């Protein structure tokens, strides 16, 4: 009785959506939580942020960037396939409240990961502004979803096709200066986007929340792979987070620890490609 894939599709090049039938997880999950997934019996356990859920379909959806062996394996799955592990929801849910004006900065898989938060913040009565970033305009997705709940949605992409061509923090800074006062910033995406967002908001003293993405194994606090430093203290992102105050995070350590297996990841990918590609 393994969890069954309902949808696995390419959203935009290199970014995929996976919808898995997981009734218990769908009943319980809240914005900001994640699942641990393992693509096959020999696979690795990796965390994926929850991007949506559907009580009727009893399903949970995640968006992921195809980057290594595990995500390539996931991207090759089809509806009807099963995965041996899809466990959750894990991590503490994001804090949702009536903060006032909240600016969301998202890129890559983070656009998916931040969607439940955007929706919940609107319901909680906030003025919500989203800054969605991508390398090129055709790598953006879910713009309509964000438009449906946000008071304002801005885009930035290096190809200059939609609004700003600058990478975050520039477009974020523009919002902070022109659409203020801003009560809270939430940034989700690659480590650099979150780090850059933190740099932009620090001088302004705006509370900024990031969803950290260290390497994990069990996801329940058992192994400590995901330890990171916040406010000078070692924390486990899986049970103490994944949300942290961006201004308290030791970013250098996070960047370094995320690269722990850089060589092995390439070796693993080469081994997989040799086996799977013609």
């Amino acid at each position, binding site marked *: 009785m393994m*969890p069954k894939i309902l949808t696995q599709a390419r959203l935009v090049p290199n970014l995929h959506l996976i919808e898995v039938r997981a009734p*218990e*997880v769908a009943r*319980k999950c809240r914005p900001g939580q994640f699942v641990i997934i*393992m693509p096959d019996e*020999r*696979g*690795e*356990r990796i965390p994926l942020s929850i991007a949506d859920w559907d009580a009727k379909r009893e399903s949970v959806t995640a968006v992921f960037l195809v980057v290594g*062996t*595990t995500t390539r*394996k996931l991207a090759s799955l089809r509806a009807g396939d099963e995965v*041996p*592990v*899809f*466990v*959750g*929801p*894990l991590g503490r849910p994001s804090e949702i409240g009536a903060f006032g004006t909240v600016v969301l900065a998202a890129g890559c898989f983070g656009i998916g990961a931040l969607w439940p938060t955007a929706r919940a913040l609107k319901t909680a009565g906030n003025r919500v502004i989203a800054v969605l970033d991508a390398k090129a305009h055709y790598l953006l997705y879910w713009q309509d979803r964000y438009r449906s709940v946000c008071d304002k949605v801005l885009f930035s992409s290096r190809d200059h096709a939609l609004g700003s061509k600058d990478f975050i923090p520039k477009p974020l800074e523009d919002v902070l200066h022109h659409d203020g006062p801003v009560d809270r910033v939430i940034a989700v995406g690659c480590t650099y986007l979150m780090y850059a967002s933190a740099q932009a908001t620090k001088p302004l003293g705006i509370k900024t929340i990031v969803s950290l993405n260290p390497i994990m*194994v*069990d996801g*329940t*606090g*058992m*192994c*400590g*792979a995901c*330890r*990171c*430093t916040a406010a000078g203290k*070692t924390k486990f992102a899986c*049970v103490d987070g994944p949300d942290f105050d961006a201004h308290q995070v030791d970013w*250098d*350590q996070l960047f*370094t*620890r995320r*690269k*722990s*297996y850089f060589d*092995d*990841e390439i*070796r*693993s990918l080469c*081994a*997989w490609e040799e086996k799977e590609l013609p």
Partner: protein
Amino acid sequence: MAEDKDKKELAPEFKARLRTEFEKDWRKDLRKTLPVKDRMKLSRQKMPEREAGERNRDFNEVNLGLTLEMAQAEARRCLDCANPLCITGCPVAIDIPSFVKLIENGHFLEAAWKLKETNSLPAICGRVCPQETQCEEVCTMKKASGVAVAIGNLERFAADFERLSGSGGIPPLPPPSGKKAAVIGAGPAGLTVAGDLAKLGHSVIVFEALHESGGVLIYGIPEFRLPKAILKAEVDYLKRLGVEVRTNFVVGMTATIDDLRNEGYEAFFIGSGAGLPNFMKIPGENLVGVYSANEYLTRVNLMRAYAFPAYDTPVLKAKTAAVIGGGNVAMDSVRTAKRLGAERAVIVYRRSRTEMPARTEEIHHAEEEGIEFQLLTTPIRYFGDEYGRVRAMECQKMELGEPDASGRRRPVPIEGSEYTIDVDLVVCAIGQSPNPLIPQTTPGLKMGKWGNVEVDWTTMATSIPGVYAGGDIIRGGATVILAMGDARIAAAEIDKYLRR
């Protein structure tokens, strides 16, 4: 936390049953076949094991198991005492003389069934129990001749014999009680409770957070000490008893205890273990290449990183691996590092050899396999290279002072004794704390000061009616067999509760 509670007085009705077994004719006859003084002259059968230089390069099991003849020869050493102390040394009170004498008599399957009356996981206990501080410590033969009967090796023999014979039998089960119990965690405690409750006729579901059953038996204890096939066979036996295991289910997150109560579960056993690794809080501990033992062993055991890249999960390899700690987990980690190719694999322990909590056999095996021991030593900081990877550690020598609360002499740092050694892998095996997920999500559950769940030690009942707990979640990092001892008490109490 509970050492004094672990040596048990046997209940009068249990003593009476032991007496009945003792008085059986076949036991009397067997005792007559060899006088006690001759039995005392027999020497202990040595467990056959693979050669150290061969086994420290792979993950196959170290011990090969006693042969039939060896097992019977060893069983003959048992004096079949009228007042067998060994049983009082066993946390689950196995009727040891009965199963040993069944082996002596050649009734190997019956010996295994005798074990399974009180212990659902004998092939595991025979391999991982610290017998030398339990049954074998109080063995009369030890007092008489200096060398205890190899009870653990015999337990392993009987269980292995049954498994290899493919008998696959289960005891007769009572009619279903119609009651449903939830067991949280498929580790040693949870599996034991599940087995006992199933044998009492209850419907049992075990909820396990990971994707395989076994808890520490699958993620912690390595293949070379406890092969996964053995664990699988023991879990399959429980499934034949009717136990259902639901993996990938994190109680506290996927559903809370209250949610499960609403689904019709009437009683609960929390056996979620010591899943929270301790660190020393010294500089450099978050460098790449510094692992908790939990992570290091989970990568290698549960995720099969030793077979990377055939399996996707990697683990860092080392020239020099330092493992901090002196317990079984430290021995498992250091021997794993050696097997993964470390030129030097070093135990760094702050007390002396005498205080090491690891099983004697594990320390002995580690020494044979070329593990170095830097005793009376503690790390005080780690140094990283330009890529943030650990490259060296600074250590300090210690001396032993006055005994502390645990009764062991407290290590005291020697000023000016600091020195640095080059290491490219560190595994921190200094203990675990109880996992906080269940306590955090179960309102009303009374907690102790170490983050452990509080129980009444005579019943294993928590502060919530119908909720029991045992193993490392109440002890904070003990042994498989103590967890199973808690579980047996809890199962009996849960049975009473369900039939109230």
